């Protein structure tokens, strides 16, 4: 709506409250907390309530003195555990994204080519799991992957293996869990771009002598790119900070950073260190998040 030349006071009040209410809420409960996290990441852990040192102290000469320290960040660099955790998270998120893409692309493509009303039904089936409990669906894989689970039983039954293999509490389980959970996030944006793709273009390209693989490379792939990027970011970003999946399906060595942070906070009660872990994770995520936001804004302009 256009902005009116000269609204009265009452109308200005209405406009200000529409903006101010959500603005203040988000400012208080979303933006401010980050400042606090950053502040605490510069403190020292104490055995006290709250378990960290104040940022300002009184020096011997009675003046205020900044007590901030970078010790937590230095510690993160020194201790192998943390950067192994970060690297492992990135690795798992990247591979899971790729797996989602490899499975999601043909699925989205097949759905886009299915005639109505079957297409809507298939889409509904993709979305349906999203509405059911995420936690319970991850839990379902505990049944599937256990030593006595369905997969081991099946493999034993057809004689591929002689004794149960370890699946649960390994990285493989984490990959399966992430792909399983985030697959719909990959399929939906892919489907949106592939649906718009004109099948005549394919016929035209094929008619001009394009081999199927070339048609795919020259026509389909470039046109699906926005969907590929959006879908990949939608999988990669939450996968990077994932906690529940490695906590339920991963082994002791599947230390993803979300889990490390959780343990640091709840088990070790080292709040400053947990805050530093969170701050660095946020920095890693800034780039993909900004990329994602730009993608979201483009079609609106």
């Amino acid at each position: 709506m256009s902005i009116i030349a000269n609204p009265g006071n009452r109308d200005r009040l209405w406009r200000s409250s529409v903006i101010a209410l959500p603005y203040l809420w988000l400012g208080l409960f979303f933006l401010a907390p980050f400042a606090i996290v950053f502040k605490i990441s510069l403190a020292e852990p104490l055995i006290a309530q709250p378990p960290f040192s104040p940022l300002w102290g009184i020096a011997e000469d009675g003046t205020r003195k900044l007590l901030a320290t970078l010790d937590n960040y230095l510690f993160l660099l020194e201790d192998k555990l943390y950067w192994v955790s970060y690297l492992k998270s990135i690795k798992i998120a990247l591979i899971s994204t790729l797996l989602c893409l490899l499975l999601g692309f043909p699925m989205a493509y097949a759905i886009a080519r299915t005639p109505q009303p079957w297409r809507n039904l298939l889409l509904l089936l993709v979305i349906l799991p999203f509405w059911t409990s995420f936690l319970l669906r991850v839990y379902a894989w505990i049944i599937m992957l256990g030593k006595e689970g369905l997969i081991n039983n099946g493999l034993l039954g057809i004689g591929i293996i002689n004794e149960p293999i370890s699946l649960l509490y390994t990285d493989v389980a984490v990959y399966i869990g992430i792909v399983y959970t985030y697959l719909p996030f990959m399929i939906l944006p892919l489907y949106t771009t592939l649906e718009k793709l004109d099948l005549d273009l394919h016929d035209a390209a094929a008619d001009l002598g394009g081999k199927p693989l070339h048609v795919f490379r020259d026509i389909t792939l470039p046109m699906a790119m926005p969907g590929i990027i959006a879908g990949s970011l939608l999988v990669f970003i939450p996968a990077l900070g994932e906690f529940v999946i490695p906590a339920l399906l991963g082994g002791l060595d599947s230390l993803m950073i979300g889990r490390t942070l959780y343990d640091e906070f709840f088990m070790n009660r080292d709040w400053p260190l947990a805050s530093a872990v969170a701050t660095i994770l946020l920095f890693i995520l800034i780039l993909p998040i900004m990329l994602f936001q730009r993608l979201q804004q483009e079609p609106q302009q």
Partner: protein
Amino acid sequence: MTDTDKNNEPISQSCQGTPWKDETQTPFIKIIEVSKRFEDATAVDNVSLDIYRGELFTILGGSGCGKSTLLRMLAGFEPPTSGRIFIDDVDITDMPPYERPINMMFQSYAVFPHMSVAQNIAYGLKKEKLAKAEIKERVEEMLELVQLTDFAKRKPDQLSGGQRQRVALARALAKRPKVLLLDEPLAALDKKLREQTQFELMNLQDRLGTTFVVVTHDQEEAMTLATRIAVMKEGSFIQTGTPGEVYEFPCNHYVADFFGNINVFDATVIGNGEGTVEVELDTSGTRIIAPHHEAISEGSRIQIGVRPEKLLISTEAPTGEQYTITRGVVEDLAYYGNRCVYRVRSHTGRIIQVSAQNYQRSAELLLEWDDEVYLSWDTQCSVVLSE
């Protein structure tokens, strides 16, 4: 114009005569040096305009000429970058849309989909906080006016395009605005309905006497509806006048072209007379004394335009001093039943278009391809086009 007593139904308040030529009349809408600049473009460029009470004024122009922006400034949706707008001697420039004595019929009609026809019409009256009984009465009056009484309880999605248009019209008129703005009122209707609606709109305006300002890109619509037309291009008015004036006396090539076809000859001014200019056509060397109210300095390059229907086509040279005559060969012809259009190649090699009424009843063509013909026109019909 006199204000009729409110209780008496006015017979006709609509614009009579030519108030724009009468200096004692005060304009009803005054647009004074209004500009609208957006970040990267000027949509309306220092425009001034007077519109009189009861006029059905049309702003005509192609897409992007600034006509919609001007209309939106009148309605109050866009504040002008500079300039003032007055209605009935009240400065409304800084007034928000909901306080202006103006209502608008939107191009999309913008009929509220979640309200019935009657609720749509009543909306503006409710916001005015009129008494329930009065709202009811006015809604009924409006329903009758646009012949939708039987549809009062329908929802918009159960109406045809033409009916929705009438709901939008009734809704905007229900508040008895001083000015009704209409944004491309007929564009969304099919051709048949458009012609019918056009006359209904004119009758309605005539009966109510409300000042209408119509924005359109369709010159036919503008010609048939308007008391006056303002032709707009690139944010400015290039010509304002009655339909007859803009058609017969277009000020330049663009306006001439906008209202139908015209043959244009390049020419040089060789002298000025009283209310006339003498020019020489470049290609043929023919000298013409054409009517023009302003003197043009000698040697200026101008254009002379002649409408196809002003040209006479004949196998013999017409006599009479007033005629400008040239010769040519029929190169192409199209038979329309009521008239023929000829494309004649003159001896200088250029194509001239002629439209001739078929006033004789004959199944055979009077003229054939490759016939040698004389083309002539009354010098009074030559139009001097600037640029």
